[in-house]
Structure formats: structure tokens, C-alpha cells
């Protein structure tokens, strides 16, 4: 294999080796169909949030509110269930809140020039406050309709329902980013915002739309997570933030240009998911799991940078 191919497929090969390693370590458990089913389910919400992060990183911005949006959407949905509202009203209402929150991020960034790191952290904290207030800080798990639970549970022809969500969301995102004019504009903005502005691209509108979509995807991830668990806590989405960006960064190591891509992000999600799942199954101590996960992310990204520098 040539050096070019190794650079291009190295992360994918590493992922395969990881799977082979865990399959040898725990053949009956890790490689079992039941565990593959679990893995797909476990990766789904992270994959969707990481896709939201990928879209925003494509325009060279950050969205730190993704986890907060996920929590708030789930809380709103469950509060509405508690008041007797139907799934068909509660779910769109929760998604709408995510989209509006995301659009507000976009307005703060594009219209007012606030750095995305600051704007999304501030707005995310506000969303978190609403989630806390609405839930009363309690874990909500009553009055959940079966129709809602079926959003993220069970299977169709042996494939987990959440697997279809991954294909649908990431498929559409990948298509938009690579095959549409809108996607090309986003990449142009991310590549050189000043040049894009001088070229007359509608930067303000595109940035607002990108953040709005990211907010909507985050809300969707929160709803699917709530459906999978059957319960909601006002902080439930927050742990998604760091793994989502870790997945995007790992994914960039599989990209020829080092730019975020949906396929790369999916690979990053798969690597982080398999790492935690595999190490849990083979009984690696939790502190070792954390150290190894961090080291792998660091090594992958560092080597990519070293490779590009050469």
C-alpha cells in the first residue's frame, strides 16, 4: 500500500484493526449480532449531534449549544406529554425550539459578529436554564406515549430503527454538503469567509441557516435519546458535546484535505463508540478507558497534523 493510500485510509484501517482486536478479545460478545445492534443504537444520537457539529465546522465556526438544545427539546417534549399533548404536536414543537435556538445562534454570529464560541455558549446556557426550569430539575419518565418510544426502539428487518435515522440524517447531510450549491457555498465560507463575502455569497443567510439546521439536528438527537431511554433529565444532552467534536476531529484525519466531512465524522463516531463499547465488554477499568480514548484521539489528530506538515 502506498503512502498516499495509507494517509487516506489509515483511520479506516485503524478502525478495522480496533474491531478485529476486540473481536479476538471477546469473540462471543463483541462480534455478536446483538452487540452490533447495540453499537448502532449507542452511536446514533452522537452521530446526529456530530453531524450538526460538522455542518457548523464546515463554515469554520463552533456550536457549543448542541447538547443544551438536545436537552431542552427532550424536556419540552416530555412536559407536553405530561400535559396530555399528542406525539404529533409535541415532537414538532420540540424540534421547532431547536431550530429557533440554532437560528438565534446564527443571528448572533452572522449579524452581530459575536464569536461563535461565545454566542453559542451563552445561548446554550440560556437553553439549559429553560430545560432546568421546565423539568423542575427532576427526571421525567411518566406519560410517555408508545408512539414516541417507537421512534428509537426496536428494529425493521433486524436493523435497529436508530440505524435508519443515521442513514437518513447523515445521508442527507452528506448529499447537501457535497452535491448542492448550498454545500459548496458553506465550504467556500469555511475556506475563506472574506473571499466568499467579496464574491457576493449570501454569508449572513447561509450562516443563520447552518446554525438553524444544527439546532434542529441537536433537538432531533435529544428526542431520539429520550425515546431510547424513556426518560429525560435536564442535563442529558450535555455529555454529547465533547464526544461530538472529538468525532469530528478524528473524522478530519480521514479527509484528504483535513476538512470536516460527514463520512469522516461517522468514522470518528464509530471509533469512539467501538472504543468504549469494546473496552467495557472486555472489562477494561474505567480510568484506563478514559486514558486510552483520550490518547487515541490525540495521537490520531497529531499524526494527521504531522503528516500534513510534511
Amino acid at each position, binding site marked *: 500500500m502506498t503512502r498516499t493510500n*495509507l*494517509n487516506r485510509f*489509515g483511520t479506516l*484501517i*485503524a478502525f478495522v*484493526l*480496533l474491531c*478485529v*482486536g*476486540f473481536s*479476538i*478479545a*471477546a469473540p*462471543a*460478545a463483541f462480534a*455478536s449480532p*446483538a*452487540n452490533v445492534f*447495540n453499537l448502532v*443504537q449507542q452511536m446514533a*444520537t452522537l452521530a446526529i449531534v456530530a453531524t450538526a457539529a460538522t455542518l457548523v465546522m464546515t463554515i469554520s465556526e463552533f456550536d457549543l449549544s448542541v447538547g443544551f438544545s438536545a436537552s431542552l427539546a427532550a424536556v419540552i417534549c416530555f412536559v407536553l406529554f405530561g400535559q396530555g399533548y399528542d406525539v404529533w404536536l409535541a415532537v414538532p414543537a420540540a424540534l421547532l425550539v431547536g431550530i429557533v435556538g440554532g437560528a438565534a445562534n446564527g443571528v448572533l454570529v452572522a449579524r452581530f459578529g459575536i464569536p461563535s464560541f461565545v454566542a453559542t455558549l451563552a445561548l446554550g446556557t440560556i437553553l439549559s436554564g429553560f430545560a*432546568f426550569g421546565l423539568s*423542575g*430539575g*427532576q*427526571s421525567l*419518565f411518566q406519560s410517555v406515549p408508545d408512539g414516541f*418510544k417507537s421512534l428509537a*426502539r426496536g428494529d425493521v428487518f433486524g436493523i435497529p430503527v436508530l440505524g435508519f435515522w443515521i442513514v437518513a440524517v447523515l445521508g442527507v447531510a452528506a448529499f447537501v454538503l457535497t452535491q448542492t450549491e448550498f454545500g459548496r457555498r458553506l465550504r467556500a465560507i469555511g475556506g475563506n469567509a472574506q473571499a466568499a463575502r467579496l464574491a457576493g455569497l449570501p454569508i449572513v443567510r447561509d450562516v443563520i441557516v447552518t446554525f438553524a439546521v444544527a439546532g434542529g439536528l441537536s433537538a432531533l438527537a435529544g428526542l431520539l435519546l429520550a425515546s*431510547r*431511554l*424513556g*426518560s429525560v*433529565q*435536564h*442535563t*442529558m444532552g450535555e*455529555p*454529547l458535546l465533547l464526544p461530538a467534536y472529538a468525532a469530528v476531529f478524528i473524522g478530519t*484525519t480521514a479527509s484528504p484535505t483535513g476538512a470536516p466531512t460527514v463520512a469522516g465524522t461517522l468514522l470518528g463516531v464509530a471509533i469512539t463508540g467501538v*472504543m*468504549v*463499547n*469494546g473496552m*467495557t*465488554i*472486555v*472489562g*477494561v*477499568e*474505567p480510568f*484506563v478507558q478514559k486514558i*486510552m480514548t483520550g*490518547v*487515541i484521539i490525540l*495521537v*490520531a489528530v497529531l*499524526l*494527521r497534523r504531522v*503528516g500534513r506538515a510534511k
Partner: protein
Amino acid sequence: MHKSIAALGLASILALGVSQGALAAGEKVSVITPFLAAIATGEMIEAFKAKATEYQWTVDVVDTAGDMAAFASRVEDATTSGAKAIVLVSVDPAQIQDQVDKAKAAGVPVVTIDGAKNASTVLNVTSDNYVLGETMTKFLFDQIGNKGNIVRFFYSAHPGVHQRELALDAALKANPEIKQVADHYVAVPGQVDDSRAAMDAMLLANPGDGAINAVWAAWDEPGIGANLAIEAAGRKGIVIAGIDGNPQAIDLIKACSAYIGTVRQGFGEMANIAAGELNTILAGGTAKADELYAPVELITRESLGVSCP
């Protein structure tokens, strides 16, 4: 890129090596919690591990640091990894009902310690949290003569802790001369530092003698944080009570600090009961009941034989 492959390969080899050690011992029991950072949860898990050693079980402990999604995922992993039993600590299994149902369907018994009764689990060993809250609240209110101002440190996301809060709500209703002047939802993990910061702010917002007479802590760690703030501010006339019988809290009671009482849950005893019943279950028997209670004890200066100036 050769090196990144090598790094991941190394991870696999290391995992393989560790797993060989883990699988070498007896039956595997997975202990999973989102709250290992809490001292009480840690105490229960350590006691369970000690008992498991007697039974020659291999115990895998997993902590998800408050992440409920990861908690659900790790329960799924334990179910597929061939664990003989799953022990959930300090969490209501209804919060991950689907995963608990799957474990039951796979024939893996699920035991909860400090959790809640559930149709898909074989046993919950706990204390009656409402009684814990009631006992502590009555003691604290008595200490301030059933009138004055209190502040509340709470964490309603934990169903057991929420029961204690309900006991406080009932007591406040029954004692109209006691006013709650501030409250704080405690951040977990990091509860001691978070509570200290919150108490700092409460003291500044309520200056003067008698502005705050007592601190009601839903468990001991927030109370310990509040005590740090009170000591640093040099405020007198404020008493603190908590729940759990945390050793640090007991030391503070002995040291004649503002911390005057805690209700000890028998955490070690809970874990011992759970392990004993699980041993019966793994041998083909059934638990004595689907919920068992460990005894509780009010610990005060008097009960410790301490006389303070």
C-alpha cells in the same frame, strides 16, 4: 499514519491483555452507576466488591459520571458481554426501562442498590428516603426551635433524594414559622465545591445574624460545602444537617462545627444485603422480597458523646 494504526492496534492488544485477566476469575458481575463520584455510592460499591471477593465473583465497575445515555449503553454492553448479573447503584431503573427490560429478557438478573423497585429487576435494597428526609428535617427544625430561616440544597433528578425533598416540603407546610430563604440545585459531580460557592453567595445575600439559621442538605456533601463557606465567612448561629452518614460529616459533627447532624444510611449493609441475595439468585434461588431496607440511624453530637462549648 502507520503510527496511528499502531496506536489503535496497541489499544486492542492492551484491551485483550486486560480482558484475559478479567475473564480468568469467577462469574462476572457488572456494577454500573452514573454517580461514582458521590462518596455514598463509592462506599456501596466498595462494600459490594468486598463481598463479591468472598463469593469469588469478578466485578467490573463502570461509572458514567452523570451521563444517562452512556449509562443505558453500558447496561446494554453488560447484557451482551455475558455478565451473570447487573447491579445498578444509586439510580432508578425506570430511567432506563428499555435496557433493563432487555437484560431481563436475556436472563440477566438486575439488582439495584439505593434505587427503586421495578418490574424488570429482581431486587432493590435501599433506605426509605422519605423517612430519611423526615428524620433529618425534624431534627434540624427542633434544633432551631421550629422557627427561623433555612436554605435548601437539593438534587431532584435522583428519585431517592427527591423523596427527601418532599419530606422537607411537608415539614415546611406544617411549620409556618420556618421560612426557606434560598435554595440551590447542586451540580453533580463537583457537589462540594459547587455547594460551597452557592453558600458563599447565600451568605452574602442574607447578611446579619438570624438571616439564615439552618442549612438543609439533601445529602452530606452539599452540607460539607456549605460548612466550608460558613467557616470562611466566620458566620455564627447557623446549623447544618444532612443525610448519608458520610465520614467527613461525622468528623465535622465531632469537631463541634456548624454541622450538627446526619442520618446514616447503612450503605455497607445495603451492599452486603444485595450481594447476599444475589448469591442466592445466582445459585438458582430467589430474593427474600423484591425490596429490602437497611436500617437508618440519626447521628448527632449527643449520639457521638461529644460535648461542645
